[in-house]
């Protein structure tokens, strides 16, 4: 039993809008799906393994700064960018680092591979989605749950 009987005109307009919306969302989906490598802002060190000819190619690599790897040698910052699969990339950077670059924290480096060393021209700090005050961390440390540095 149909309680609501849709008027013919209303039905026609509804189908018209549905077609417009479906066409546009399909085209946007296809475009963004085929361009997904270009839309991605950076690659992880693991992705580099499967890429061929990375030498002299302008890239962005993202991951965490490896613990105990951040050093200042001969006027250059030297560190390793590591990802969840423990693959890492050696990076050299000659300018000033952003304030938030720390060991075990997110980073994105932009530059080229020269002789298997990544020479970065731009370094960006990538912070994660966790927010908490220092006092909350101290409390977690007391309870022994904290797993950061």
């Amino acid at each position, binding site marked *: 039993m149909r309680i609501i009987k849709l008027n013919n005109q209303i039905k026609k307009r509804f189908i018209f*809008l549905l077609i417009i919306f479906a066409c546009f969302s399909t085209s*946007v989906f296809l475009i963004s799906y085929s361009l997904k490598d270009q*839309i991605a802002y950076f690659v992880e060190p693991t992705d580099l393994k499967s890429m061929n000819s990375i030498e002299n190619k302008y890239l962005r690599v*993202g991951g965490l700064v490896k613990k105990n790897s951040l050093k200042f040698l001969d006027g250059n910052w030297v560190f390793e960018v590591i990802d969840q699969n423990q693959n890492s990339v050696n990076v050299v950077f000659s300018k000033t*680092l952003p304030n938030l670059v720390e060991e075990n924290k997110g980073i994105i480096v932009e530059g080229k591979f020269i002789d298997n060393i990544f020479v970065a021209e731009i370094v960006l*700090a990538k912070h994660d989605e966790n*927010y908490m*005050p220092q006092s*909350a961390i101290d409390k977690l440390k007391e309870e022994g749950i904290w797993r950061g540095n």
Partner: protein
Amino acid sequence: MFAITPNTLSNFMISLSRYVILLSLALISVSIFLIIFLENDYYQGISFKIMFIHVPTAWLSLAIFLLMGISSIIGLIFKSPTAFTVARSLSPIGLIMSIIVLVTGSIWGNLTWGAYWVWDARLTSMLILAFIYLGHILLLHSFEHFQKADFASSILAIIGLVNLPIVKFSVDWWTTLHQESSVLRMGGPSMTNDYLITLLVSFFGIFMLTIFWFSNIFYIIVEKRKMERSILLND
């Protein structure tokens, strides 16, 4: 909602608007008080406090577009003048909200990432959203008859709805410099309760301000139409 005329809705909202603005001012004052006395983030320091204006305006700019799209659909299908007027009064608010998001985000980005702007998926899709708002406003003002303007801009609003999931899920679908969602995410919010409460108070303050602003724009449009009609009838 199809039986409600623009006039009834306008009168209803104007009668409530003084309570809405009082509630909004109260909530915003409480949130400013909370923000000032809130402990800094362990990693970002004081700069994370930009969040309490960035995140509410970002939510609202998406929610306003969703409402605009839905009322455009209702307006087009049922030829409802109320729905068209709702969509018409929402787009300037949405544009201002998205500009605030982009500006505060840019300042925050410079403090934390080390760059004012990058072309990652979240930032670019948010810029597109602001441009769709701008296009909606321009379309509304580029026709002589408001019915034609309503038709054209509603089509734009419906097409623009495709962009909403892209803005929301861009951080999950692609790698971005922008962080993942902290509040509206699987597994609950990733911030402590004092931050979350402050964020919600500040959100509801700005939300009430938006409702107040919306009812004023709606009222002005309705009164202007009434005036134009009476001039036409007197001639």
